[in-house]
């Protein structure tokens, strides 16, 4: 790969020979189109609820078994990725709004910070979860689990966002591609 990057002329020459499938940024019209597949759609329809449940389990059960917010968040976000691959990324993106994803990510960070600053209120320091024991029984355990859920929400929101950014987006070189098909579908 590095050779091709270092020598764009040579790469372009090779690409011209294989009937032009080799510009660095492929125009949207030439990208492989979404193909409806009954097998993939049915499979995703069946396993998506289980994957989402596994993600929630790993996220919520991180205090008692292997797992935690980071892993559970990624597994939960995989549900959206699978739906995107099965039913097309654009239709799935049309069901989501940017405010929802941004709110998801911000609420996760906010949960972590609230638990952190709450440590002052219960007589401890920043993020001192043992202070919550004075409020209610098993307070530190439940605050740790709340933080894990916050982490999971941040991770799943950001990964979903990255997936749609790469899957639906306009290219960095916006002037090189035809932007008349995609943006109004996105926003």
């Amino acid at each position, binding site marked *: *790969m*590095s*050779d091709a990057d270092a020598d764009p002329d040579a*790469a372009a020459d090779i*690409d011209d020979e*294989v009937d032009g499938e*080799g510009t*660095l*940024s*492929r125009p949207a019209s030439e990208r492989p189109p979404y193909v409806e597949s009954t097998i993939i759609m049915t499979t995703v329809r069946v396993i998506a609820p289980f994957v989402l449940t596994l993600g929630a389990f*790993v996220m919520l059960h*991180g*205090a*008692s*078994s*292997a*797992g*935690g917010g980071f*892993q559970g968040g*990624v*597994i939960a*976000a*995989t549900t959206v*990725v699978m739906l995107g691959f099965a039913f097309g990324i654009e239709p799935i*993106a049309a069901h989501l*709004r*940017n405010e929802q*994803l941004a709110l998801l*990510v911000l609420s*996760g*960070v906010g949960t*972590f*910070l609230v638990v*952190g600053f709450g440590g002052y209120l219960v007589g401890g320091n920043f*993020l001192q*979860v*043992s202070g919550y024991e004075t409020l209610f029984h098993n307070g*530190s*355990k439940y605050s*740790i689990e709340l*933080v*894990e859920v916050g*982490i999971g929400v*941040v991770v799943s929101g*950001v*990964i*979903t*966002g*990255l*997936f*749609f*950014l*790469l899957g*639906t*987006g*306009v290219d*960095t070189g*916006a002037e090189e591609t035809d932007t008349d098909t995609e943006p109004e579908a*996105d*926003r």
Partner: protein
Amino acid sequence: MSLSVPVAAVLLFMLGSALAAAALRDVVGSIVAFAGYSFGVAVLWALLRAPDVALTEAAVGAGITTVLFLLTIARTSVSRSERFEGISLRSGLAVVAIVVTVGATVPALPPVGAAGTPVLAGDVSQYYLTNAYDQTGVTNVVTAVLVGYRGFDTLGEVAVVFAAGIAMLLVLRREAFV
């Protein structure tokens, strides 16, 4: 160092898929080989009894990273003129340098699972293992350390994930995720 049969098999699989990922000319095949390598790492962590890390490697390394790579490749073009990528002298020298460095430093590490390693014998980890349940009520020591004892570090990690999302918006010059 004794090498059990499953660990040796996984290491061999990782070596093969790593070589395939480096040498394959077809970028999609290279990505798949890289995902196979990540899967091998995840199995290795599970065999070494680190389920938390194994779960992370399987979900992030073998799963999401592969999807993001494939999406990126779908937006760029792939030329399949040759089966294998040529290896330049510079890349070869870099590989030799890395191999020599790693080969010279890794034997200095204690063997996996040795009783005298700082990880097992050190005061800090023993403190965590002894007190984590009593002080936090959390049975998974990894989670107890992550949030209970080292919450500030974890807050930093969350900030990094958050910043990655923002940075992606900046790089792609967009203002909305969807």
